């Protein structure tokens, strides 16, 4: 009975193994009897040989054609050869040019992928799992993110990363996985930490999907190979300076899921059923791996943990068969002491303050204790064991987890701490306390004396190791959430969705204000920013105004849109009594750094600050900034500042207000005209506001007017480049380019009708929503380049998704336009005019008369995402924040819809 995981592979104990234990098992289903536990969405990836065959098909056909020609018409072949010989110089030139184009150009222009910056020298090594003895999984002195979404993700060649990234300076190292029905391959990759560009990639011959993470010391990188079922996994040592050239490799007789530990000139690593190995870091004189000692699997059963070496002692754990913590002499491999444990020890040991901390328990990375127990009992049953024996065995197989503290010097246990379920990841140690996650869904903080200091419920199993900075601890759950918690009291301060398809086995690494972590389908991810660092530099994250700014599509954190949605919660929780006025949520909110800034009018007037990402309705709002008229347009947010326009046309005493994002307290107020459209947009260094009926003004961050220009009624957000601002004017209809520093009109073209959106800049072309469709215009003079007549744009916004422009037409269609040439790619019916589409990672969410429909990337038809008609009519278009969708309704207020 092997549970089937995603991608059509079983995730469970390998058939024939007596002791299912820690590790990442991917076994193909073998019999129908195995199909008893079925999980949905099992869709195998058809790749491998077929893809290769298709790729080689032209060459094969050409070769076959040549062969047939040579056999049937040898004279023709001879003449062809003679001709080629006579024209040898031109032919040689052509061959050289083709060769240069094929091989040389990519070397000069490497793939058009993200930029790779020069390597920063002098950074600390990452010589073992989680970077050091204290297993903090963070670069020295690193700060972690407290906001932001995805900075970059690498999915080009590999989408799956089970290993935990290792970070040295501005380089991130990880091993990848590509497991399909036909193939099993992997690679060792080095990335630019800031851009995600691939610095080098090493694919040793036959290298397979790998869980082991790279250990780095100096110019050497050592890593294992394979997943749990591999029987001949190798250990590799690479030369980092030489773009990952393999220095040596060694084939073990089992799997190497353990992450090596480099200590002095030695490498220590576990090899599953083949014991622990110690290699010389440098190859022997013959260029081969040099085994210094090896303790076999007979005495050291199930060597899965990642070793740690301190004071000449190698500390390792033994899993299912062994159930012990063992200390070996680093020089000789001789056993110094052995501490038996009641459960399999899969958690790598952490050394801090003269103590060893490690986790243990029942269950593994894929299966909880009950599943493992059921399998064990089933095996016993099949082996003819009595019910009494099974009952006895059951007592030790139930869900349990423990952390032990052991004296490093003596190997004596000092205390233990019990969790409800197993602890598989490493413990991260601070000066006087440790942090760890458990399969029971909690993140624990325990003092060095064993007393619990804090715990936080993640509501999902944690099988990964936490990353610890001086102020925060970062954890990744089985459900693909990455949380940042305050280190003191484990209060959530950051949250990001890594993806929706598990398993999530990669532990986060923190460096450069960001989290680096692998995922199942979304590749290697770099997520989050550190607010204080980001606000100081231009180009930091911001919500630029209506719908996130030109082209943003209602999402700026780059987090994925769930496949299906459902109602999550509403705010306020209760509807007003009959006859009582309701709060009106008339415009989309601003979203930044874990907070939503919701414009409110009606019964309450102002800006409401709510936390994003909550699965249940927040018990109370973060703050509410009251304003006399109420806010009916989207605020803008950057750094620690919120901007909002108080009131709508014809209201008295309207104003542009600047608020403190943390408290909602007003910083400054600038009056605007009562008849002003009130459009508000944020650029890097200034705020633009339509502060008069016909004027547009630029303000600096202190509220000082930089310039005011009379242009006509500006109702849509402008777009900007470094020196210019592009504005669509509704009355009289026009498109204008302004000098960014002065506001001087550089050019202005008349439009046939009022524009339906602000301009959007893409590759030096302005894209404008009109009553006919999308008009592409030259940046230098506003001349029309092409018109995509897909139907009039509604909803005041165009959304840009890679090469597509998306909008909802007046005819009620979701229109997709090729951003390069204006070709109308698709029209999807049933869209609700006036509500712009939400776009994230290729998926589009659009409103219909009855709900929200989702059009996945590459899918021909939209699917119902969730019904909303029972909530009332949309009063504001949906935006995506932390993978939740937020929108206003007329019956039930502010709605959060989340993954179903």
């Amino acid at each position, binding site marked *: 009975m092997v549970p*089937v995981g995603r991608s*059509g592979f079983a995730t469970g104990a390998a058939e024939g193994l007596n002791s299912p234990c820690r590790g990442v098992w991917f076994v193909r289903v073998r019999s*129908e009897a195995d199909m008893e536990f079925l999980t949905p969405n099992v869709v195998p990836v058809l790749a491998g040989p077929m893809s290769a065959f298709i790729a080689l098909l032209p060459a094969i056909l050409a070769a076959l054609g040549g062969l047939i020609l040579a056999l049937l018409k040898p004279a023709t072949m001879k003449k062809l050869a003679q001709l080629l010989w006579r024209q040898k110089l031109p032919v040689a030139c052509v061959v050289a040019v083709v060769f240069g184009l094929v091989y040389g150009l990519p070397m000069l222009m490497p793939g058009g992928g993200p930029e790779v910056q020069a390597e920063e020298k002098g950074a600390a090594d990452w010589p073992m799992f989680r970077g050091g003895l204290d297993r903090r999984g963070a670069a020295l002195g690193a700060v972690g993110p407290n906001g932001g979404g995805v900075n970059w993700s690498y999915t080009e060649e590999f989408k799956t990363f089970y290993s935990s990234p290792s970070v040295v300076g501005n380089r991130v190292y990880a091993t990848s996985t590509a497991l399909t*029905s036909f193939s099993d391959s992997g690679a060792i990759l080095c990335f630019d930490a800031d851009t995600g560009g691939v610095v080098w990639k090493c694919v040793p011959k036959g290298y397979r999907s790998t869980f082991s993470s790279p250990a780095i010391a100096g110019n050497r990188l050592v890593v294992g190979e394979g997943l749990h079922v591999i029987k001949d996994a190798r250990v590799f040592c690479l030369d980092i300076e030489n773009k990952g050239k393999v220095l040596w490799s060694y084939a073990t007789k089992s799997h190497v899921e353990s992450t090596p530990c480099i200590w002095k000139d030695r490498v220590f690593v576990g090899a599953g059923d083949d014991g622990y190995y110690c290699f010389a870091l440098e190859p022997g004189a013959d260029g081969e791996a040099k085994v210094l000692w090896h303790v076999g699997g007979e005495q050291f059963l199930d060597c899965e943990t990642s070793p740690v070496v301190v004071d000449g002692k190698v500390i390792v754990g033994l899993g299912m068969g062994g159930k012990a913590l063992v200390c070996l002499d680093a020089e000789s491999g001789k056993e110094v002491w052995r501490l038996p444990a009641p459960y399999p020890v899969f958690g790598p040991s952490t050394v801090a303050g003269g103590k060893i901390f490690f986790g243990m328990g029942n269950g593994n990375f894929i299966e909880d204790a009950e599943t493992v127990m059921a399998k064990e009992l089933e095996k016993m049953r099949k082996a003819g064991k009595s019910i009494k024996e099974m009952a006895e065995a059951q007592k030790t197989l139930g869900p349990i987890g423990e952390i032990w503290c052991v004296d490093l010097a003596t190997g004596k246990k000092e205390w233990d701490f019990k969790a409800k379920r197993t602890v598989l990841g490493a413990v991260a140690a601070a000066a006087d306390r440790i942090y760890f996650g458990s399969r029971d869904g909690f993140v624990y903080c325990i003092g060095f004396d064993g007393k619990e200091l804090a715990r936080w419920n993640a509501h999902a199993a944690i099988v990964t190791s936490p990353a610890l900075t001086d102020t925060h601890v970062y954890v990744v759950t089985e459900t693909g959430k990455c949380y940042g918690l305050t280190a003191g009291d484990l209060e959530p301060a950051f949250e990001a969705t890594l993806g929706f398809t598990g398993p999530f086995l990669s532990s986060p690494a923190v460096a450069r204000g960001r989290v680096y972590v692998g995922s199942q389908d979304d590749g290697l991810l770099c997520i989050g920013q550190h607010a204080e660092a980001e606000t100081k530099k231009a180009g930091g994250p911001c919500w630029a105004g209506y719908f996130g700014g030109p082209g943003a599509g209602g999402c700026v954190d780059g987090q994925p849109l769930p496949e299906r949605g459902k*109602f999550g919660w509403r705010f306020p929780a209760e509807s007003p009594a009959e006859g009582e006025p309701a709060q009106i949520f008339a415009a989309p909110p601003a979203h930044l750094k874990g907070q939503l800034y919701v414009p409110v009018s009606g019964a309450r007037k102002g800006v409401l600050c709510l936390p994003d990402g909550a699965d249940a309705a927040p018990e109370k709002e973060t703050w509410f900034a009251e304003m006399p008229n109420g806010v009916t347009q989207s605020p803008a947010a950057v750094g620690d500042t919120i901007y909002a326009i108080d009131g709508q046309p014809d209201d008295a005493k309207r104003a542009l207000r600047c608020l403190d994002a943390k408290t909602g307290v007003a910083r400054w107020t600038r009056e605007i005209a009562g008849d002003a459209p009130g459009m508000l947009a944020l650029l890097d260094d200034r705020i633009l506001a339509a502060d008069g009926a016909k004027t547009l003004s630029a303000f600096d961050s202190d509220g000082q007017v930089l310039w005011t220009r009379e242009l006509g009624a500006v109702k849509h957000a402008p777009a900007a480049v470094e020196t210019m601002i592009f504005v669509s004017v509704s009355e009289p209809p026009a498109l204008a380019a302004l000098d960014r520093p002065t506001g001087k009109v550089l050019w202005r073209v008349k439009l046939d009708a009022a524009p339906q959106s602000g301009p959007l800049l893409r590759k030096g072309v302005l894209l404008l929503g009109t009553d006919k469709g999308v008009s592409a215009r030259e940046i230098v003079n506003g001349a029309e380049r092409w018109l995509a007549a897909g139907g009039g744009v509604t909803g005041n916004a165009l959304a840009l998704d890679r090469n597509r422009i998306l909008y909802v037409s007046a005819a009620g269609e979701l229109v997709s336009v090729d951003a390069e040439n204006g070709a109308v790619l698709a029209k999807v019916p049933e869209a609700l005019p006036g509500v712009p589409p939400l776009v994230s990672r290729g998926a589009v969410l659009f409103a219909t008369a009855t709900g929200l429909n989702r059009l996945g990337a590459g899918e021909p038809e939209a699917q119902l995402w969730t019904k909303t008609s029972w909530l009332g009519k949309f009063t504001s278009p949906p935006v995506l924040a932390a993978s939740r969708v937020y929108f206003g309704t007329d019956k039930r207020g502010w709605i959060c819809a989340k993954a179903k």
Partner: protein
Amino acid sequence: MKILKWLLAAALVIACTSAGRALINPNFTPLHLVKQSDLILELEAPAKFENLKGTLAIKAVLKGKTDAKAVVIDTGSWTEEEDVPVMEPLFLKSKGKPILMFAGKYKVVTPKGEVKEAEEKALFNVQGEWVPAAKMEDGAWDVKKIDGHMKYTWDGGPDMLLRGVKYALGDEDPQFPSVVESSWEQHAEAGKFEGDVTGACPVEVGGKILLHVAAEKGDRLFSCDTKGKKLDDATAASKLAAHSQAFCWTDLDGDGDADLASWDGKALTLHRQNLDGTFAAASAKLEGAVLEGVLNLCAVPSAQAGKPALAAAAATATVLLLPKDGDAYEAKPLPAGGDQPNFGKAGDCLSADLDGDHHADLLQTFEKGSLLYKGQGGGAFAAPAACAVALGEGGRHAFVGDFDMDGLLEVCTPNRAGSELWQNHGEGKFTPEIVYCGEMRYVDALGRISGLTADFNNDGRQDAVLFYAQHVPHFFFNRGFRAFGHAHLLDIAQWRTEPEDQQGQRAGALLDIDGDGRLDVAVVRNGGALVSLCQKAKGDAGLGVALRVKAGAAAGPVNVVAWREKRCLGAWRVAPGEAGAFVGATEAGPMTLKWQLPGGKPASEEVIVEDGVLRFEIK
């Protein structure tokens, strides 16, 4: 020779059928089938086969277009050596039942995840069997053999598949559940029972849902410790002192609270609930017929407002206990039907609106049949009509549920020797359909002793839980339209190997012990221990509506039909004084509840299920 051929055919059918056991393919459900079909037809059975060809008239085009009026099938490709007449009888015997034909190019993903890119073909569903067919040059469809693997997709009746297809084509978000992903937390032992245990059920006492376990050596009430996820004995606090061999909960005195009528083998005692949730016992004064050998009790409407009558199933007759003043009841045997002598031993009597006329009926079950006393309002019952519902030899219990979601309650009769599910066609007509009920038919089919209906996976469909004499209980989730899947992860055997768990149950009930909006289970093992297991589900707390009928609003059970937009979730039997019914919801949104009280007008109300479990009371 001919007989041999027929025997071979029968063996082949059985072999093919058995291949489809114990599996639901989540990768190719009826939804995939309908989506990938270019043409779906409802056909009529051929009148005959001529030259190995049969003509099936097209009754309805469900999807796609065709100008044809009939579909021709050809069984001729069956070679002489293997000339087993499987197809012809299969199609011919389908007369009066729908035959469905699906045609298209199917990308079947097997349960293993293998993708089978098939050629264009047709799939016929005939009498619940799947027959693939290829198109021949003359336009006929070449039918060869039964494909057992397609039962992984649908293993229900063709009539239900027809409804399922219409649902898949018409609903905006159709679902055919393939799996229940929840499992159980650690079990908690709440107590031990000596002697016989005659039943268990949730009941509302003092505004809280408690578990009542009826036992000959003393009934007990257990309160739910939501934090501790366990049951606590609350018998002493409730002052309930009953020794029930047969019992029923109802509002005996019309005060709105649940009271217990308990038969201890000798006498009937009325345990009335006080305002503070305690109970006061009083012996019922029985007049008229002598009451003895009571098997079970149920509440039925009476002529006296606010006071229900009680029906007692006894070995010799069904006795109606009509309320009189105070604690007095007049015992009046119900007339027996002409067929009763042939029905064998009596079992449970059930009170429910079985014919959909909004009056509670009384069904007295027997081993070989049953008597249906149709309710006529005002406590009156019509003369009994013989009914097909039979308990089977040695059977004792039955329970109702609207498993095909049509507004009429089916009857399930679990039996050690083989259970049955009786499809309700209205007006007292029932047909046995267990062979078309998916995995409920064959997953540990023997040894069942009792069961209950409950929506344990919160999807709004009525599921079935079956208890066993010498086995762990089984949970069968309704895939919709009376086809059940076995909830493997909820099979306690996966987690518990204690000898007692394997040795059957005396009684069991489902109630929300931990307050997470999902039903948990409590069973009294054969060994006497009461254990509870809380459901451990992924995701948020469960959503749903807890339905109640306020005592006094109706004198007997009422059918409440729940709707989610255009989709009927079926009828729930809700009786005053009982704990009510729980209709789950997979996600928040509106639910429309429709009912009609006896003598009243049709009523409906839209409720919004938004967060947790919404309590809805019909007043």
